């Protein structure tokens, strides 16, 4: 069991990093609580895997320290840290049986054979691998193989955290959710710290208690899935989480009103006051589901043109043009869809203001 602390971590793959652009990780400073289920979410190349490898010890960070339960482990190799890691594709010892695969990490640590057997059988039971124990690991299906990779982590009684690097990439879609549920079950059963890297928001949001969204080597926000959806602190979070993502419109401020190409969007007083103090490029942001849409002029409504309608079954996505920008509205089934000219309502309590990408606060 471990609480993992990342203290001012920065990492560059270059030997002599110069400017900020040389760093794959810019500044990571946070704490992963013991027993928590975390997801690291971000687009390809944002540094998720780098961060994971720093936590597991496969990489030594250029700067900063990694602490497990307050002990500095920055310089310890992975086998000396109490972690297990599951990789993107199943890593197996092909020539061994499933049982020997599970026993391998224990035997390497010189644990007595009867204890090895006990642990391996226990873990096989948890992962539903018991029927395959005496089969060669190479012949199994991808999901069973991935479970074996996970099992090699679980067998070690000293394991404090399991790190997952996009573990479901090679699994068939219909098995994905089964395996995801299995992971969640194991998490609830064993209360291990799990850190799960993915670029799939559905995976992150369904799996984790806390999701850290990464962008270009930084964690831009950590929060519960609900938090990330309701209160994105960065335009990237708003855009990345939710489908379709948040609408963003570049604006200027005029008192308590945001001006978007002449259209007036009323803001919350507090938001507007903060916005007046903020510097940089201002944008208003709103989730498609909070926008109001009407075929007749409404109070504080902004005129726009309906461009396209996408039927998604239980809801419709309506794309509108507001001067030269596109705004998407999520309409629940049964609500009337205007044609041609329409008016958009921006409820002030759901309208956010961002300065240079960050929420004004």
């Amino acid at each position, binding site marked *: 069991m471990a609480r993992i602390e990342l203290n001012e971590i920065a990492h560059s793959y270059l030997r002599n990093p110069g400017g900020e652009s040389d760093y794959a990780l810019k500044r990571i400073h946070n704490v992963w609580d013991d027993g928590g289920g975390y997801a690291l979410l971000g687009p390809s190349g944002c540094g998720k895997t780098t961060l994971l490898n720093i936590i597991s010890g496969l990489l030594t960070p250029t700067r900063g320290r990694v602490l497990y339960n307050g002990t500095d482990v920055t310089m310890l190799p992975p086998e000396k840290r109490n972690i297990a890691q599951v990789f993107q594709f199943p890593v197996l010892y092909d*020539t061994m049986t499933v049982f020997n695969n599970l026993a391998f990490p224990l035997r*390497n640590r010189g644990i007595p054979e009867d204890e090895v057997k006990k642990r391996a059988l226990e873990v096989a039971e948890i992962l539903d691998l018991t029927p395959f124990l005496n089969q060669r690991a190479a012949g199994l299906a991808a999901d069973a193989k991935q479970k074996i990779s996970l099992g090699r982590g679980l067998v070690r009684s000293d394991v404090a955290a399991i790190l997952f690097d996009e573990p479901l990439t090679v699994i068939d879609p219909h098995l994905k959710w089964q395996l995801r549920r299995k992971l969640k079950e194991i998490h609830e059963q064993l209360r291990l710290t799990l850190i799960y890297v993915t670029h799939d928001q559905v995976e992150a949001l369904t799996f984790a208690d806390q999701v850290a969204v990464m962008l270009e080597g930084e964690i831009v926000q950590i929060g519960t899935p609900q938090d990330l959806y309701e209160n994105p602190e960065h335009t990237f979070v708003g855009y990345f989480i939710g489908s379709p993502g948040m609408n963003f419109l570049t604006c200027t401020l005029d008192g308590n009103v945001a001006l978007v190409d002449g259209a007036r969007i009323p803001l919350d007083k507090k938001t507007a006051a903060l916005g007046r103090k903020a510097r940089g490029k201002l944008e208003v942001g709103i989730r498609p589901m909070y926008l109001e849409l009407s075929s007749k002029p409404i109070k504080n409504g902004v005129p726009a043109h309906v461009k396209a309608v996408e039927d998604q079954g239980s809801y419709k996505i309506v794309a509108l043009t507001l001067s030269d920008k596109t705004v998407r509205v999520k309409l629940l089934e049964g609500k009337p869809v205007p044609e041609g000219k329409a008016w958009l309502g921006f409820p002030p309590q759901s309208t956010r203001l961002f300065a240079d990408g960050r929420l004004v606060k």
Partner: protein
Amino acid sequence: MDKWGNNKAWFLVLPVIVIVAFSAIIPLMTVINYSVQDIWGPGQSIFVGTEWFKEVLNSYRLHDALWRQFLFSGLVLLIEMPLGILIALAMPKRGWGVSACLVTLALPLLIPWNTIGTIWIIFTRPDIGLLGVGINSLDLLEVPFDHTAKPLYAWITVMLMEVWHWTPLVALLAYAGLRAIPDAYYQAAKIDGASAWSTFSYIQLPKMRGVLTIAVLLRFMDSFLIYAEPFVLTGGGPGNSTTFLSIYLVKIALLQFDLGPGGAFSLIYFVIVLFFSYIFYQALQRVGKGAKG
């Protein structure tokens, strides 16, 4: 669908048949023809049936050459496979050293085969060769080193030359196999606390199985058919101590001009090679299937 009534299309196959006939069928038939006749001059021959085959198969000189050949190919595999793997393991994984190693390793493979024989003659000469003079200056041997002096010396020289010439091929294949192993395997092995030996025997060796099978196949067949280098270096001597199958064949067929026994010998040699090719082909097929799973 009705079959075309016109069978003239068969003429389109004719060029291929002609080419194959000249490249394979006619030469093979000629050899078969020689093998069943006693020929002592142009137009003077007599049909002897399987007599040459019996004679060749019962010839102790063929038996000797055959055992020598198996011993040679066996030694080649025993030395070159582990050595090639060791070299591949020791090679750098990134940086300028990779290209430097690859080029250096590839050099022996680029030299014409009889040039290699010549290089080693000069290299091992006891009067001017670096190796020959070097060994003899140590003054440890009863008979001074000279590859023409003793069968053992000849074998050592031929083996050294063979290992120098062809181990790079095994090393290059093994290196390619090693490079193809994803990093995640090594990372997982580290996390599992595997020793270097376990990493080798449970990850590297199984993952190299495919390329190593190809290496064994290539090295066995090539060494089984070896001719140019030992012919240049030792000419099959001293005595017959380095007379391998192909050298013996050329002696019978071209130097003594015994076309009948030569033909029979060629066919037997061919059947042996075909047999081993088949075995290796089967082995490769199985490896191919195993690799998928």
